[in-house]
């Protein structure tokens, strides 16, 4: 029973099944949008479908119990498989330990055998020469008048694949750790503001930073097309009253402090922007300039009407900046309209024009903690190292035996390579041929 289970878990049949299972189910999550508010799904699907999907966590399927189970099974599969492979690799890489094993020279494995009448010292010298040309330190052993030579190269390459497999465990473990103990959220700051908490994504409330983070300065550069080119927040971190760190974050260049990572995520126009709007009463000819904060209404002169600015667009459809104005008249619905710099907008008795505005940006900083990061990073490095080991290096082994027979000294050569076996054997055959012809 135990044996059967072990065989199942160390089989590549299971690996292939899991690979296809993970691939096939992953498709689902790319077709059904993940992580929307749950009410949205209730609207889209009928009650029956919704409850089935809910049971299988289809709306957050990559974190569901069954998807996690697939990944856990894959991990067990890798562990079992690696444990099974290690003895084999130890065997393959320790062939130098029993150099006098005659089984190695079984006829089926020997790539060349011949007889020579030259004296043994000359043959020894040649054998050593030939093996040294292939690997640094050949092992030479004598037993019962028989001479054994062994040389090998690139032993570590055999461990490359083990490293690749183990690296997957690291990455999966890092992912799990991040899923369980990691969190992330956002801080919105206007120049000069500071924060000691941040709001978690997915509406799970706020969390203490344990220190203060101050936004000293925010700046943004634009391309000629109006597309943002670079935005940057200058930050200072104050921990227990001491300024411990000052630095800048831009997109792709985060800052780290106490295991937290600060990424420049977004920016926008803050509510603290103030606007100057010129309002002209076209009946009386009276002109005024209103200075307004966003969403704060002010009365228009000599009337019962209030005016407010609801929103600013730095570039309204290529026309330059536009603000959304709101007229609030007693017993009437709000009148909402755009106001620009280049032209007046007429509403009733008044004509409005945007005179100027004092735009304040806010910066959106993503805060995240992921204790799985070191594992994932180690996994990446192991994986690449493993591939390099097994791709660019080959484990090659050569055995050579000289023994006395009636026909003179019999020389046998055996060769083995972990890759490109055929080419390597041909090469050794060529060398052995030169040895035989005394050309070496």
């Amino acid at each position, binding site marked *: 029973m135990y044996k059967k289970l072990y065989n199942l878990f160390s089989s*590549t*049949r299971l*690996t*292939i099944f899991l*690979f*296809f299972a*993970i*691939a096939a189910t*992953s*498709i689902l*999550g*790319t*077709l059904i949008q*993940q992580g929307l508010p749950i009410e949205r799904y209730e609207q889209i699907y009928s009650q029956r479908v919704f409850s089935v999907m809910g049971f299988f966590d289809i709306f957050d399927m*990559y974190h569901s119990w069954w998807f996690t189970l697939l990944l856990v099974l894959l991990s067990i599969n890798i562990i079992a498989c690696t444990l099974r492979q290690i003895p084999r690799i130890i065997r393959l890489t320790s062939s130098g330990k029993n150099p006098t094993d005659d089984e190695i020279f079984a006829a089926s494995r020997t790539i060349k055998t011949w007889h020579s009448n030259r004296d043994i010292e000359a043959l020894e010298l040649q054998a050593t020469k030939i093996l040294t040309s292939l690997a640094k330190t050949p092992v030479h052993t004598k037993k019962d008048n028989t001479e054994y030579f062994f040389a090998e190269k690139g032993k570590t390459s055999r461990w490359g694949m083990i490293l690749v497999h183990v690296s997957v465990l690291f990455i999966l473990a890092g*992912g799990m750790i*991040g899923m369980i103990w990691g969190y*992330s959220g956002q801080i919105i700051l206007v120049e000069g503001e500071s924060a000691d908490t941040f709001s978690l994504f997915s509406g799970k409330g706020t969390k203490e930073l344990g220190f203060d983070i101050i936004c000293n300065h925010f700046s943004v550069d634009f*391309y*000629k*097309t109006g*597309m*943002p*080119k*670079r*935005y940057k927040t200058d930050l200072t971190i104050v921990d227990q009253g001491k300024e411990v760190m000052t630095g800048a974050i*831009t*997109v*792709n*260049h*985060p800052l780290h402090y106490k295991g937290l*990572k600060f*990424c*420049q*995520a977004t920016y926008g126009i803050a509510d603290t922007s103030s606007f100057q709007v010129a309002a002209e009463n076209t009946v009386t000819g009276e002109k005024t300039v209103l200075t307004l904060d966003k969403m704060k209404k002010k009365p228009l002169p000599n009337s019962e009407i209030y005016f407010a600015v609801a929103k600013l667009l730095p570039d309204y459809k290529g026309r330059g900046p536009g603000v959304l104005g709101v007229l609030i008249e007693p017993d009437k619905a709000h009148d909402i309209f755009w106001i620009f710099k280049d032209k007046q907008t007429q509403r009733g008795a008044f004509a409005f024009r945007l005179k100027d505005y004092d735009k304040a940006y806010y910066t959106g900083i*993503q*805060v*995240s903690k*992921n204790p799985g*990061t070191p594992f*994932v990073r180690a996994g*990446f490095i192991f*994986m*690449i190292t493993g*591939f390099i080991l097994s*791709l660019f290096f080959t484990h090659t082994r050569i055995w050579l035996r000289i023994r006395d027979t009636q026909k003179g000294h019999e020389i046998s050569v055996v060769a083995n390579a972990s890759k490109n076996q055929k080419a390597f054997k041909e090469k050794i055959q060529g060398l052995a041929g030169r040895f035989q012809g005394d050309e070496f």
Partner: protein
Amino acid sequence: MINDTFLVSITTFVYFFSAFVFLISYIFKKKSAEKIALVSTVAGMAIHTAALICRWIHSYQMGIGHAPLSNFYESMVFFSWSLVFIYLVTRKQDTNNLGGILATFFSFLILAYTTLSPNVDCQIQPLIPALQSNWLTSHVITCFFAYACFAIAFGLSILYLLKRTKSKKGIIALLPDAAVLDEATYNMISLGFVLLTLGIITGAAWAENAWGRYWGWDPKETWSLITWLIYGAFLHARITKGWKGIRMSLVSILGFTAVIFTYLGVNYILSGLHSYL
């Protein structure tokens, strides 16, 4: 400054010529034709590379300097460059110039579509801040190298199926043994798998810097994982189970379908964070 799109047009013709001459050398087994095709491929590659460099310099002159790997047009041009590059690098293992025919012909098709289609905008566009990253550049390069390997493997698998199903007639009879095609497919897929692994790792490193997370299961990421798993299954089946033949060539074709879906389908059919490419 020379117009890079003009150089790309020339390249398109040169690759067509190379594919044609490779085909001739394949059918008539002429060494001299092979030499001509090879010289022409290398020349095409040189012009193609010049086009990439011109475009790169040009973007700096426009004040929006970045490697030419940032929009759909640029990625298609680079994809075809990768095809020929991978072919030239792995040429020693090529049999009967099949890799040469496939690589130059696919490159020609991609470039012809890119230059002729009105849907492909060849303007140099500025880069939004998230895309200004060396990780991203490495990511794009390794992924397209991988895609190139998989494209050649896909072509070989199709030839394999042709060979197995109707081996007696005409041009197909000239194809090398099914076993040789099978081996060549496997070699291309192993190389592609390593490159795709590198591509996913560099992509994850980029995501970690730009968005503070390695992996967010957005559709593009997920589809690249699906592709990786399909080819991973291929390699394990082949190495540990010794699976060969029609079954394996179907997996190779399935894998390439996933590649195409990752590259195009996700953008045009699904939406996601990567929607710029």
